[in-house]
Structure formats: structure tokens, C-alpha cells
């Protein structure tokens, strides 16, 4: 709608805005509408939750390595209800397991990868002054915050936090203690947060691209965030619906997911019955399979940026990568039931979902191959971001390839409930996505603070993490192939067939604990470099994308003059150019 009043109205609006230039501490750093501040809030929150989820896992790993042995030193801190005499009760293990999954996925990786990097980098990369809806952006962060507080608070309710796994399968979750109700309420906050963020990212990408920045000139990172936001927008609401129904089952006594005549502790439940327990799984995985791509696509985007920058050559097959990621986004909505082969679905359904699963592996392989081929013939700079980014490739490769047997009905059934699955998806998410996130932190830290992180500490962090990640997860393949269930709090010490793999559990555990030590250089580096890091110029990595034309750190509004895009995103080593990078933003 165009209108003659627009120009005058715009001027009046600008005059109105000018009154608000001076912001106090609270408006500037806490309740900020600046996408960079919100991005950093998201990132720090995400990192704290990653650390918290890691601690939960380290506790679990004690009981897996030494089942029934009291936890030394800190075992007494958890109280008699959870660890009598320092020995972990199975209920506490379940609590840790459910909350580890929930926190890592919904409060750790997604806030960091989408909320953190998306918020901080995306508007800068497309040359926008801010997100399209800054206030909604702030609301999105505070919804996440409330969701996080709810999840943390649930540890202190009677009976403890949710214990039914991060998947909250029914009917188990419906008859579980009150922590599950908190989990559901927390999830509704987190879903709201994702929804607000997704609308914002999509609108920003569509509307606020700089002049000349056509879709095929967008950095791959922006494409990755764009597709991710569509997944969040369309896949999360069914889980919200399912969450509301589970909440009704728990609070109002309905039977959406409750079968007739369910017997619990020798008593038939008095509910109406007639519900469909598998319906929960369908609705859950309808979200949670796209969610897998929400976890991995931003990581691919970050790695693509860093590889192009540090090989000093264009990404190999940028267009095929873009088509692949869009295709991947669509197909990710029709593969969900490959998580559910164990429900005894018919062969026709299984055939459909295993076919779509095999199809979806093709675009992932295209992207991974393009990234690997991009290394070919490059003059590679092995700085910390690049080391993490390169490590992503084989780690994600292992995770992806070991997923193929899980996508086929026949081979999934013996593997699905074993440690093999744990190893598979952790290779995708932990040394895969989390390495990419570390790469991104080292890469964009100078843009956010104006200083670089220390390289030596960074390399120590990288090397230790890479070795330890493999020590943690590689043995799980062996444990899984030996057939040990992934749902046992004592790693199967009561079973004969599991005895042969018990020692691998201690190897994994020690790997995890030593990996914790290797995160100390990172934590120190992260805070120390804010004041003491080496000063960084605006375009510290000699990069080509638009965010590097802004000052470091960028002021409110980002760019003094609205930038323009003159060419594609990765014009490195252009023949005949006087330097080895030709930025998008230079005429």
C-alpha cells in the first residue's frame, strides 16, 4: 500500500525516535532491542545451558562407568532422596537423562546456533540495521529465559524434574511425577520463543537485505538460518499442540494418549481411556525430526563461511549447496517416522519412511561433499576457527554415515534401543554441531568485542576436545553393536552379555571428564579476551561478506552508510585482483 503521507509520516516517526537515543543500563544491556545484544544474551544463555547439560551428563557417566559405587567427594551434595550415601538412584539417573537431552537440544544448541549466531550475524551479513521486529526479538529471548527458569526450577519440585526422556513418551510421561508438568510448561515457553524468533528471521531475510543482495548472493549461513527458521515455524506448532494435549492428560485427566485399561502398580487407571499412545510419538517426531536439521543446518552455515574464508577460495558448488539445503528443508517434514520403526508400524509405512530417509541423505551428502571439495587446492590458514570447522567435516561424516543403517527398517530394529543410536546422533550434534558452534564463536568474537580470542588457548581447546569427543563416543558404537540397551542406569551390569563391554563405559566416562578440563581454556579465553585479547581491525579475517564492513563492535544500527552488495558472497582469489579477497560490499 503506497500512500502520499508516507514520507512525512516517516520523518515524524524519526523525530519521535530521536528522543530515545540515550538508553540506561537496563535498556541497553538487559531489556535491549538491539539484535547484537540479544544475540549475545542468547549465546551466553546457550553456553551456560550447554555447560549445565554437560554437568548432568558427567554425573550420569559416573554411574555408567562405576555402577553402584558411591560418587566420591560430591556424592553427598545431592541428598538422600537422589543419591543415598552417594550412590545414584535410577530415578535420579532418569531425571538427569531427560533433562540432559532437553537442555542440550532446546536450551543449549538451538539458542546458541539460531538465537545467538542467527541474531548476531544474520542482520549484519545481509546489511540490515537490525531485525525486522526488534521488540518481538526481545520478547523471544525473554520467553526462552522463562522457559529455561521453568526447566531449572523443575529440579526442585517434589519428585524432581521430568524423568521420561527428552522425548516424553506417553503413557509413561502422563503418569510421571509433577516435574513433567513443569517440563511441558517450560516447553510451551520455548516453543513460543522459537516461533517469535522464526517469524523475525524470515521477515528480516526477505525484507531487509541490502541493495543488490539477491537471494543467490546471500552467504550460505543466511540460507541455512532461513531454512532453519522455516523448520522452526512449521514444525514446532504440532509439538505445542501435543504438549497442550499431554498437559490436558496430566492436569484435566483426559485420555488423548492414554489407552483403555492401563494398569499402573497393579491398579487399573480410572481414566476414560481410548486414547492413542503412538499419536504422541507422531506429533513429537513431526517436530523433532525437523529439529535435527535445526541443530545441524546453522552449523553447516557457520562451517561454510569459515571454510571459504580460510581456504581463500570460493565455496565449491554454492548453488548446489543452496538447492540442497532448501530441498533438505522440505523433505525433513516427511521422514519423521523413521524414529518409530520400533512401534511395529506396517511395512507400507516403513517402506515410505525409509525411502524418504534415504532420499534426504542425498542433499546432506551434497553439502558435505561440497565443503570437502572446497578444501581442494586452497591455501589453508589453520587458525582456531578453521581447525574446528575442518574437524566438523569428518565428525559429521561419521555421524551421518552411521545413521544410514538406522534409516532402514530392517537394520534399525536391532540397533534402535542400543548405544549405537546414542553414538550416532551425538557424532552429529556434539563433535558435529558443537564444534561448528565453537568455530563460529572464535570466528565472530572479534566482530562482537573488537578483540580476538587467544590462538594458543584456542588450539589447546580444539585439540583436547577433538580427541576426547572421539574417546567418549567411539566406544559407544562398540557397546551398541554388542546389543546393550541405551536405557539402563547401570549400563547393563546385571546382564551377562553386557559384561564384555563394561570397560568401554569407563573409557567413555573418562573421556567426558577429561574433556571438561579442556573446556577450561575456552571459558578462560572467552572472558579474558574481552579486555585483553589482541585488538582486531574491522575485517580481521580478510573476509568478503558484509558483516565485516561494519565497525567492530558494530554500533546500534550497525552501518554508518547502508551497505550495498556488488557481487556474490565468496569472491576469494579472483584472478587479476590486487588482493586475495574481493568483498561483496566494495564497489
Amino acid at each position, binding site marked *: *500500500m503506497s500512500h502520499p*503521507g508516507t514520507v512525512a509520516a516517516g520523518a515524524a516517526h524519526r523525530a519521535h525516535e530521536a528522543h530515545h537515543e540515550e538508553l540506561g543500563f537496563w535498556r541497553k544491556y538487559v531489556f535491549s532491542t538491539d539484535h547484537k545484544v540479544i544475540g549475545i544474551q542468547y549465546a551466553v544463555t546457550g553456553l551456560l545451558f550447554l555447560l549445565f547439560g554437560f554437568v548432568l551428563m558427567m554425573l550420569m557417566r559416573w554411574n555408567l562407568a562405576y555402577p553402584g559405587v558411591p560418587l566420591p567427594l560430591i556424592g553427598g551434595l545431592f541428598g538422600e532422596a537422589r543419591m543415598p550415601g552417594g550412590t545414584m538412584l535410577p530415578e535420579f539417573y532418569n531425571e538427569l537423562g531427560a533433562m540432559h537431552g532437553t537442555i542440550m537440544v532446546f536450551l543449549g544448541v538451538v539458542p546458541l546456533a539460531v538465537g545467538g549466531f542467527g541474531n548476531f550475524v544474520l542482520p549484519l551479513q545481509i546489511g540490515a540495521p537490525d531485525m525486522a521486529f526488534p521488540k518481538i526479538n526481545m520478547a523471544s529471548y525473554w520467553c526462552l529465559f522463562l522457559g529455561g527458569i521453568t526447566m531449572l526450577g523443575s529440579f526442585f519440585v517434589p519428585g524432581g524434574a521430568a524423568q521420561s526422556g527428552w522425548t516424553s513418551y506417553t503413557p509413561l510421561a502422563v503418569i510421571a511425577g509433577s516435574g513433567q508438568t513443569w517440563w511441558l510448561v517450560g516447553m510451551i515457553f520455548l516453543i513460543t520463543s522459537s516461533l517469535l524468533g522464526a517469524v523475525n528471521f524470515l521477515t528480516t531475510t526477505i525484507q531487509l537485505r541490502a541493495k543488490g543482495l539477491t537471494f543467490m548472493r546471500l552467504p550460505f549461513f543466511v540460507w541455512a538460518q532461513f531454512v532453519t527458521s522455516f523448520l522452526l515455524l512449521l514444525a514446532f506448532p504440532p509439538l505445542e499442540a501435543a504438549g497442550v494435549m499431554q498437559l490436558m492428560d496430566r492436569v484435566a485427566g483426559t485420555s488423548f494418549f492414554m489407552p483403555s485399561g492401563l494398569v499402573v502398580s497393579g491398579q487399573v487407571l480410572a481414566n476414560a481411556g481410548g486414547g492413542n499412545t503412538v499419536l504422541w510419538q507422531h506429533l513429537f517426531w513431526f517436530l523433532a525430526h525437523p529439529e535435527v536439521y535445526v541443530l545441524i543446518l546453522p552449523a553447516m552455515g557457520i562451517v561454510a563461511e569459515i571454510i571459504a574464508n580460510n581456504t581463500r577460495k570460493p565455496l565449491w558448488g554454492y548453488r548446489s549447496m543452496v538447492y540442497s539445503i532448501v530441498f533438505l528443508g522440505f523433505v525433513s517434514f516427511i521422514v519423521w517416522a523413521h524414529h518409530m520403526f520400533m512401534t511395529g508400524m506396517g511395512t507400507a509405512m516403513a517402506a515410505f519412511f525409509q525411502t524418504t530417509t534415504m532420499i534426504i541423505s542425498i542433499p546432506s551428502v551434497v553439502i558435505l561433499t561440497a565443503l570437502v571439495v572446497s578444501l581442494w587446492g586452497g591455501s589453508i590458514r589453520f587458525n582456531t576457527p578453521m581447525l574446528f570447522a575442518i574437524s566438523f567435516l569428518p565428525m559429521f561424516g561419521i555421524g551421518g554415515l552411521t545413521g544410514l543403517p538406522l534409516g532402514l527398517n530392517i537394520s534399525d530394529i536391532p540397533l534402535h534401543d542400543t548405544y549405537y543410536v546414542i553414538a550416532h546422533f551425538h557424532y552429529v550434534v556434539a563433535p558435529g554441531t558443537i564444534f561448528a558452534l565453537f568455530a563460529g564463536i572464535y570466528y565472530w568474537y572479534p566482530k562482537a568485542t573488537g578483540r580476538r580470542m587467544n590462538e594458543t588457548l584456542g588450539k589447546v581447546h580444539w585439540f583436547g576436545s577433538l580427541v576426547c569427543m572421539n574417546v567418549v563416543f567411539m566406544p559407544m558404537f562398540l557397546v551398541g553393536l554388542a546389543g546393550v540397551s541405551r536405557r539402563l542406569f547401570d549400563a547393563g551390569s546385571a546382564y551377562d552379555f553386557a559384561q564384555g563391554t563394561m570397560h568401554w563405559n569407563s573409557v567413555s566416562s573418562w573421556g567426558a571428564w577429561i574433556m571438561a578440563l579442556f573446556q577450561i581454556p575456552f571459558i578462560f579465553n572467552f572472558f579474558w579476551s574481552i579486555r585483553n585479547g589482541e585488538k582486531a581491525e574491522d575485517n580481521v579475517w580478510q573476509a568478503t561478506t558484509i558483516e565485516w564492513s561494519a565497525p567492530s563492535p558494530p554500533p546500534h544500527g550497525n552501518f554508518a552508510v547502508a551497505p550495498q552488495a556488488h557481487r556474490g558472497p565468496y569472491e576469494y582469489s579472483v584472478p587479476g585482483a590486487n588482493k586475495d579477497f574481493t568483498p561483496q560490499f566494495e564497489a
Partner: protein
Amino acid sequence: MDIPYTVEVRRDTGLNNGKIGIWLFLASEVMLFGALFASYILIRTGSPSWPRGDTVLDYRLATFNTIVLIASSVTMVMAWASLMRRRFGTFRIYMAATVLLGGVFLVVKYFEYSHHLHLGEYPSHSNFFAIYYTLTGLHMLHVLGGMVVNAYFWGPGAKLWNTNPVWFTNRVEHSGLFWHFVDLVWIFLFPTLYLL
């Protein structure tokens, strides 16, 4: 600092930010209600017996409510059209009518709910009532949300009309899109729950 295309239209997309935002939001709402309707179908087809809606629920009240909501959609459009014609006084009347009609819907819903609760037909009574309360309850929350936004544009939000009428008109249009969506959900809900 100004966000571009908050008021004016970006030439290559032909849209302002708010309109893209509201349509994306509505897409997610379609998925939310779509999942609930899909669950309804699955639970009903898997159930040995299921009451026909008009044997349990009062379809006359629901028919009345359908007419009320459709009327409120009409007044919503008229409110926006009044702003396009720069008739702020007429806008206020139509907007007030929209909010009031939403209120009538809620009052009727209140009597309907209390009637069923009085008969002991709680959500736990059967899966029919479970899905009935969940779907209509969630829809009712949407009606309430739409009313709050519309009341805001009728009252304090209307100050924007004096400083930036184009922006204000756009906002009312976007709020209207949401209101029509809520109406549309009811038009699916009504036959599904009350007639089939």
C-alpha cells in the same frame, strides 16, 4: 534508528514487514490447529464409539456464535476500510463492534461451558469432551488475544493515527488478518465438533 519497510512497501517483495510477519505467524497457527484436527481424526477413527456432535452439544448456540463471528469479521473489514477512507470516527464504531461481538462470542461460550460442566461433562468424561474442550478452549484463547489487540487499537493504540496514519492502517489490517483466521478456525471447528 529506523527499521526499513516498517511502513512503506519494499519494491521487489511488494510487502511491508508486518504483513510478511503476520502471514508467517498464521502459517504456524495453521500447523498448530492442523495438528489438533489431525489428532481429532486419529482418535475418532480409532475409537469404537463416538457421539454425533449434535446429540451432545447445542448446535443452536454454536450456529448463533458462527453468525456472531462472521459478523465480527465484516465489522473488522469495515473498520480497516474506514481508515483507508480516512474516516477515523467510523473506524472507532466498527472496531468497537468487532470487540463487542468477540465479547458476545465469549459470553455464549461461557454459558455453553458451564452447562456442560454442570452436567458433569468434564474434559476427562470422554475423548469427545477432551478434544471439544481443547479445540474450543485454544480457539477461545485466540479470540481473547484478538480482542485484546483490537481493543488496544481502538483505545491507546489509536494515537498512532495522528502521527503515522499509514502505519496505523497497516496495523489494523494485520490485526484483521489474524481476526479472520480465528474466524476461519471456528468455521472448521463448528461442523467438526457440533454437526459431524
